[in-house]
């Protein structure tokens, strides 16, 4: 069974540029999560979906970050006008349902550097 895949694996930008990250969850998983992991920190949830609906985006900086999952499968996270403070690894995870017993499976992440 294929795991969670993400692309690109690395991205280097100048401040002010835009970037998109793409995630393909495990087949059949209805819940998809995006995390931001700054260097030497634990992952912090940005947004998560059940099917195509956003369940929680309270930690997503809405002025520059956006996330979609239009068909309830793949997802794209986009940063408009990146800042140096956005430098981090962006992890995607998926699970079947989202309750207490649902295990989240993580992709390898996209390491973003904003110069």
């Amino acid at each position, binding site marked *: 069974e294929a795991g*969670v895949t993400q692309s690109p694996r690395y991205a280097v930008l100048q401040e002010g540029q835009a970037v998109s990250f793409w995630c393909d969850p495990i087949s059949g998983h209805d819940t998809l999560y995006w995390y931001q992991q700054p260097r*030497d*920190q*634990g*992952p*912090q*949830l940005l947004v*998560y979906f059940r099917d195509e609906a956003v*369940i*929680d985006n309270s930690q997503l900086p809405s002025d520059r970050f956006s996330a979609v999952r239009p068909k309830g499968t793949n997802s794209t996270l986009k940063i408009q006008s990146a800042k140096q403070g956005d430098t981090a690894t962006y*992890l995607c*995870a998926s699970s079947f349902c*989202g*309750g*207490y*017993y*649902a*295990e*989240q499976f*993580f*992709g*390898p*992440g996209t390491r973003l550097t904003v110069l």
Partner: protein
Amino acid sequence: AQSVTQPDARVTVSEGASLQLRCKYSYFGTPYLFWYVQYPRQGLQLLLKYYPGDPVVQGVNGFEAEFSKSNSSFHLRKASVHWSDWAVYFCAVKRGSNYKLTFGKGTLLTVTP
């Protein structure tokens, strides 16, 4: 608000020695607790999980953890560390109607020969 604290940013252990990585949680109610491992340039992998029941839970690769309600702790243990265990270990708690995972800052485990 819930939180997870991993008080040790880095732990160094000799190969073959025993290991304990500490995790303290702050949560009202029944916590659902997890340990994840992150190898270099890889995503997180689940080591073990605690759901209300037996306080000692077994995980993969010889890891186990013990839940203590009185100490608000969920420490990770291994009897004999291997060099391949060199990685960052994260403790996490899941809670609330949205079942959000909150992670600690992680502990880097280094293994010496």
